[in-house]
């Protein structure tokens, strides 16, 4: 098996100010399916092509933003080893085990806070409840799709201060690769953005250097085509969703994309395209003088709202 260790982003838990408005957004407009609710009032959802129990967790709170992000690892043994290695690295704080079942259908999770202030967790088990088409003679897509209908939760982009520490933890301890980076500062020596992958995707998580800790830029969901990105844009207008920017293309990762906000101000992305990443692919570097096309390849212009508004 070529892919080991951390397999994929498994869930993102978001704080929302109004759960009713959030559910309309995430279910009717984005098009996720509700899986279940728990006695804490959390709502668990997933995209149509995901096999595991859930991938998005919404909880009503008095602030917006990301509560934590979870990563599926390949086995219990790997989970134990990562817990040991993370502790030994001294790079993470607030290490703790969350008991199995705290998330429905999910085994025990190892939780830690990374140098940029974000809470991450690893887990080895989540019930495989199956995707919308099943696994025997499946149709290419299920009946009853609604909204933008992305096939999966894909990645997050996060803002925080100690970017170097977080990149060190992800690459040296968790086995991620640096697919793309944005450099700047004197002599181009400072890394200002890191797009990291644990898989064949151009990124599974990305971080931007920022003055505050633990900020959330967006969580992203995968669409099949540019046409589906344009349809997502139609749905954004139809449902009067707050548009951020797009449809457009990123230089970084080559993604065809559109960004918008949920009713609590958390940014979402739906995107298509990209490329296949193999672990021996050279890192792509974007220099300071090309930051415009790196971010928005067509306009080549910096957009203050896109770059600075976070929850």
């Amino acid at each position, binding site marked *: 098996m070529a892919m080991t260790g951390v397999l994929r982003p498994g869930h993102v838990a978001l704080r929302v100010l109004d759960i009713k408005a959030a559910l309309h957004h995430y279910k009717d407009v984005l098009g996720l399916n509700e899986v279940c609710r728990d006695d804490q009032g959390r709502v668990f959802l997933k995209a149509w092509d995901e096999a595991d129990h859930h991938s998005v967790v919404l909880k009503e709170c*008095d602030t*917006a933003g990301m509560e934590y992000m979870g990563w599926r690892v390949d086995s219990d043994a790997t989970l134990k080893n990562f817990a040991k290695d993370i502790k030994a690295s001294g790079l993470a704080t607030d290490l703790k085990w969350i008991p199995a079942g705290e998330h429905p259908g999910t085994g025990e999770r190892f939780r830690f806070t990374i140098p940029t202030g974000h809470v991450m967790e690893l887990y080895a088990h989540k019930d495989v409840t199956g995707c919308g088409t099943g696994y025997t003679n499946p149709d290419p897509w299920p009946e009853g799709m609604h909204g933008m209908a992305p096939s999966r939760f894909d990645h997050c982009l996060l803002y925080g201060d100690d970017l170097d520490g977080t990149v060190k933890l992800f690459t040296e301890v968790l086995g991620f690769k640096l697919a793309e980076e944005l450099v700047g*500062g004197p002599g181009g020596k400072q890394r200002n953005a890191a797009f990291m992958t644990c898989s064949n995707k151009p990124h599974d998580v990305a971080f931007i250097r*920022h003055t505050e800790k633990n900020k959330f830029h967006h969580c992203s969901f995968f669409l099949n085509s540019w046409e589906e990105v344009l349809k997502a844009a139609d749905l954004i207008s139809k449902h009067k969703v707050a548009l951020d920017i797009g449809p457009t293309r990123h230089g970084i990762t080559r993604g065809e994309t559109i960004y918008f906000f949920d009713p609590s101000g958390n940014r979402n992305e739906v995107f298509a395209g990209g490329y296949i990443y193999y672990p021996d692919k050279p890192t792509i570097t974007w220099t300071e003088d090309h930051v415009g096309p790196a971010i928005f390849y067509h306009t080549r212009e910096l957009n*203050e709202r896109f770059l600075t508004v976070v*929850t």
Partner: protein
Amino acid sequence: MRSRCAALCSNRSEAVSARIDIVDDAVHFDCPEGVDVLHSMIALGRRGIPVGCRGGGCGVCKVRVLGGAYRTDRMSRARITEEEEKQGFALACKLYARGDLKLQVVGKMARAFAPCKETMHCTGAPHAPPGSTSWRR
């Protein structure tokens, strides 16, 4: 009776509409009932209040109400503390006028690429304004 109605209805398409005054910028616009202040500003193509997430989460549309009656929907506590709420601070995207309002703009769109003053050392950035990001410095 008739003249009062005429005064109320004469030059406004909506019978109930509040006038929003942004004091420092000499910007003003009408805000229909049931529409948040930020949305009315955007719909009329006016400027003055920075426009971010429009969901009460990011804080860039923060204002202080200097006068007038209003209500607010839930706003992120990370952006408006209880104390600030009592003092009249609000997020314009969650602010609904109950009459004419005088506002002062408090929120700012952070500088995307705040120039680095201490060019030798950009990390940690004690000199950078809060909320500034360094995709490029």
